[in-house]
């Protein structure tokens, strides 16, 4: 998106002309409200433009628009003069049916207070596709077409800002709004909740229009009068809005601009929608109708109108809810088949893994954690859908260890709660910003605000670095314990510090094979560290803004990072540039997680939505709305079907990936939830938060109720049961230690981590 230069003259004259139309006097420069730099007289501007030879197509369109207006207002002489000076021929002027649409008479919204007059021609000057018919339409309300930026070289921002033409007399905005309020109050209860969804986006858009058109006083009055009516979960946004009183303020704010270009999505039942439409298409309410058509996308569904509770649970995001089509793509949420590795019965002497089919003296146990059937799970992706790294010998060893540990795994449930071992970081001085455990729980790493990364060994085994090259050449390479010999005993220590970042480290991730560590930081880089030498190997530069989170893929090799620049990037460790860029969020990405089958990536963002992206082609396959604050943690269930998310509003929401629906809400935390983890078999969900507690929830029960397929699949609305209390299995307070990270060991022991903060 091109940066908006204040000096760009393109939208300015249009604004001038626009504001002039309300007074219907051309060439009256002094009426423009103060504060806008290019307050050159309109007439002068209009005449200057042709001098610039209208080489630019947009300038040409502006010119044509001006001509049209003059013609319509019966200012023939002025029109003639302008035409002569511009050197334009007559035939170019009138009905431009083509896409150039410079006439832009497709704009609805009258310049005069009475609505429906299509004479506000400059509402869609730049690149709007206006139909020729509506261009010369009768004063019947023309359908407002959205601003289409296709085929224009004008920067999007200008187009967007130019979209804020004046829709009617600003002084009457409160009147329109109150009128709508009265109407909605008068409808039946069942429709009222749905129609009330319209208030917030309407309020914001109307306010921004007033600000953009420099009606500061009216904007302030409008804001003061109606901001109290909005839903409580929008109050943060409203606070930001209240600070925005001038047009210049709008230009610097990218999130706000994106908010304008993307339509706010509402889901309303057909009956309620008909009611609203009928009411608004009466003459005096046309302004609101125009605004709605322009800035709102109403996803109509057939069915019962939703209740307030249902609506409240799904709303809260920056762009409304998700359209139904957004959640219709097929998602392969099943797990990849585990490769068959034969587990030797005798641990000690059969350390080395076996190839399949190798004859053994004893009959080895088959890998039981792998899929039991040979048939492909219809919900699982193909094994080769995403190229995954080959299993190395050490990986196979790991898998065998994994399986052995799995047999000793404690079965958890409401009657058998996990024990929690908590690792407290002392003397961190509020600097601990990220923590991660290895999968086998042998190492823990912490990222700090002083830009260091420290790795500790949890087991009694110390951390050792590899010997220097000189020493390495001296060892006997054929000995059995060569892997031990390359380690330098002199460097053995409990913890190792990794220096390299130049800003607080916000995300940490161990690789599954325990060879690498990733860290991402405010300095906009992601660094790969080796855990053999404890030095930095690579710095991935791609984001230009702080990177908030990073994670290795469960199979290694790929990793994902997301940051302030509102995109998430998929990298491979051996490529210096990202393989995929997932863009679509309206605000920065605060949390990124891989799906267990490594084919999908979930990103949580400050725009209060969670998106699921397909790694193969970068498409966004799911959008989940419902949180009322930025999302700070995500967790996939081990079976890949469900996703849990925690945000600053203290709620944990549960989502069904296959159907794309919210299926549960766990209330209980009173502060931001920073840590979420499912137990190894998915029976328990543990959540840790800034309120110094760890809570255990019954995941099997939460997901059990959903197995019955009685969603209204067409509308996708569920009434969430208020069963947070029943699902809560335990709540454990720590001593002033916010819980930042949780990890279930392979035997289902829960490890927690946080910094002591007296």
């Amino acid at each position, binding site marked *: 998106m091109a940066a908006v230069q204040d000096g760009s003259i393109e939208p300015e004259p249009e604004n001038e002309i626009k504001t002039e139309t309300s007074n219907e006097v051309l060439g009256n420069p002094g009426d423009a409200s103060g504060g806008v730099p290019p307050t050159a007289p309109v007439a002068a501007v209009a005449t200057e433009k042709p001098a610039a030879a209208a080489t630019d197509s947009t300038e040409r369109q502006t010119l044509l628009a001006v001509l049209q207006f003059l013609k319509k207002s019966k200012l023939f002489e002025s029109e003639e003069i302008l035409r002569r000076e511009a050197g334009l021929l007559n035939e170019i002027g009138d009905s431009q049916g083509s896409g150039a649409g410079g006439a832009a008479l497709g704009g609805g919204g009258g310049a005069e207070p009475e609505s429906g007059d299509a004479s506000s021609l400059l509402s869609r000057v730049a690149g709007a596709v206006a139909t020729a018919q509506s261009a010369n339409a009768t004063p019947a309300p023309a359908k407002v077409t959205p601003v289409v930026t296709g085929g224009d070289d004008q920067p999007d921002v200008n187009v967007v800002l130019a979209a804020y033409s004046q829709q009617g007399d600003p002084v009457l905005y409160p009147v329109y709004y109150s009128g709508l309020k009265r109407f909605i109050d008068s409808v039946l209860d069942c429709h009222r909740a749905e129609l009330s969804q319209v208030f917030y986006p309407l309020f914001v858009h109307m306010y921004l229009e007033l600000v953009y058109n420099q009606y500061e006083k009216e904007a302030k009055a409008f804001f003061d009068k109606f901001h109290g009516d909005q839903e409580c979960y929008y109050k943060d946004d409203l606070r930001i809005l209240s600070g925005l009183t001038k047009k210049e303020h709008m230009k610097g704010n990218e999130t706000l601009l994106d908010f304008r270009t993307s339509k706010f999505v509402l889901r309303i039942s057909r009956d309620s929608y008909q009611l609203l439409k009928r009411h608004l298409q009466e003459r005096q309410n046309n302004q609101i109708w125009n605004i709605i058509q322009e800035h709102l996308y109403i996803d109509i569904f057939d069915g019962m109108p939703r209740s307030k509770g249902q609506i409240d649970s799904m709303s809260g995001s920056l762009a409304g809810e998700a359209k139904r089509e957004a959640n219709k793509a097929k998602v392969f949420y099943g797990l990849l088949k585990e490769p068959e590795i034969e587990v030797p019965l005798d641990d000690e002497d059969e350390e080395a893994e076996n190839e399949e089919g190798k004859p053994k003296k004893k009959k080895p146990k088959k890998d039981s954690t792998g899929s039991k059937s040979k048939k492909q799970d219809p919900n699982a992706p193909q094994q080769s859908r995403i190229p995954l790294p080959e299993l190395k010998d050490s990986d196979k060893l790991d898998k065998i260890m994994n399986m052995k540990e799995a047999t000793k795994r404690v079965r958890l449930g409401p009657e058998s709660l996990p024990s929690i071992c*908590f690792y407290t970081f002392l003397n961190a001085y509020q600097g601990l910003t990220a923590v991660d455990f290895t999968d086998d729980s042998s190492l823990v790493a912490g990222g700090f605000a002083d830009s260091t990364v420290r790795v500790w060994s949890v087991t009694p085994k110390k951390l050792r670095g590899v010997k220097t090259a000189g020493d390495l050449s001296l060892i006997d390479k054929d000995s059995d314990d060569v892997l031990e010999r390359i380690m330098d005993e002199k460097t053995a220590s409990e*913890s190792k510090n990794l220096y390299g970042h130049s800003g607080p480290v916000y995300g940490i991730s161990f690789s599954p094979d325990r060879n690498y560590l990733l860290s991402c930081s405010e300095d906009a880089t992601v660094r790969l560290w080796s855990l053999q030498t404890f030095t930095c190997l690579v710095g991935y530069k791609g984001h230009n803004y702080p990177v908030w989170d990073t994670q290795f893929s469960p199979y290694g090799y790929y990793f994902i990072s997301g940051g302030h620049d509102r995109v998430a990037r998929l990298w491979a460790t051996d490529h210096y540039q990202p393989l995929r860029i997932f863009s679509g969020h309206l605000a920065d990405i605060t949390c990124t997680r891989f799906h267990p089958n490594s084919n999908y990536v979930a990103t949580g963002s400050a725009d209060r939505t969670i998106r699921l992206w397909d790694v193969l082609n970068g498409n966004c396959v799911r959008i989940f709305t419902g949180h009322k604050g930025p999302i700070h943690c995500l967790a996939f269930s081990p079976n890949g079907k469900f996703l849990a998310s925690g945000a600053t509003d203290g709620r944990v929401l549960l989502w069904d990936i296959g159907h794309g629906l919210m299926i549960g809400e766990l209330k209980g935390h009173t502060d931001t939830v920073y840590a979420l983890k499912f137990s190894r078999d998915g029976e328990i969900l543990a959540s840790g938060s800034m309120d110094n507690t760890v809570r255990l929830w019954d995941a099997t029960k939460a997901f059990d109720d959903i197995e019955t397929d009685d969603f209204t699949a067409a509308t996708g609305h569920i009434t969430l049961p208020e069963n947070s209390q029943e699902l809560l299995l335990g709540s454990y307070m720590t001593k002033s230690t916010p819980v930042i990270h949780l990890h279930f060991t392979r035997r289902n022991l829960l490890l927690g981590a946080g910094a002591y903060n007296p």
Partner: protein
Amino acid sequence: LPGELMKGIAESIGVSQMQECVCVSECSLLSPSVCLCSQDALKFMHHGKRRKLMTSDIDYALKLKNVEPLYGFHAQDFIPFRFASGGGRELYFYEEKEVDLSDIINTPLPRVPLDVSMKAHWLSIEGVQPAIPENPPPAPKEQQKAESTEPLKAVKPGQEEEGQLQGKDKKKLLEGSAMKLKPRSTHELSVEQQLYYKEITEACVGSCEAKRAVRVNVVQNNLALLIYLMRMVKALMDNPTLYLEKYVSAAQRCLALPCPTLP
């Protein structure tokens, strides 16, 4: 942002007379930038897993917008703003003291703060929180009352029994060991607790004179027993960490037994 802010800033840099309207317009230009900057600083605070906004957050937020950060505002807790009022205005300013360079050079270095270390402890053992020093003290009375009146609320923190007894004789405080209460199941008293219980009851109502340190008349025996019992009950009730409602009925029954024997 009020217009006086601009006036104060202008005066601090030497511009003496600024018109009211100029101040107001300048302030209105400032306020959204300040707003945006603080929004960004909040993001850094959230990602830093903190509740307190620090000066470093604001510095990083400014860096985000390609603005130079403010230099010299690092304080551990709060920036020591000084309050001054005068001339009809209130002002908070940061007092910049002038310090002699030689003083700074010659002062001994401050103590190096302790390095980050990691310590592990059991937050919960099979669902119950042990009462070790690393865990917070057990739930206060009110919470226990809530638990007992709403048994379905499955909050099960461990409960620690601290004996804080005000016996007639001076006794030292006995710290009780953790009593694991499993609601809806039988109470298991560990051996320690049984010992402890025996100790306490003996001290209060035992007939051993040395422990009681009070001469007791045979006639008054029962009455004295009752008194000691009541004192023990009072001590138990006074204990802020024990909630006795569950046991009231049982206690009443115990107390009622000696009564018929009273003359």
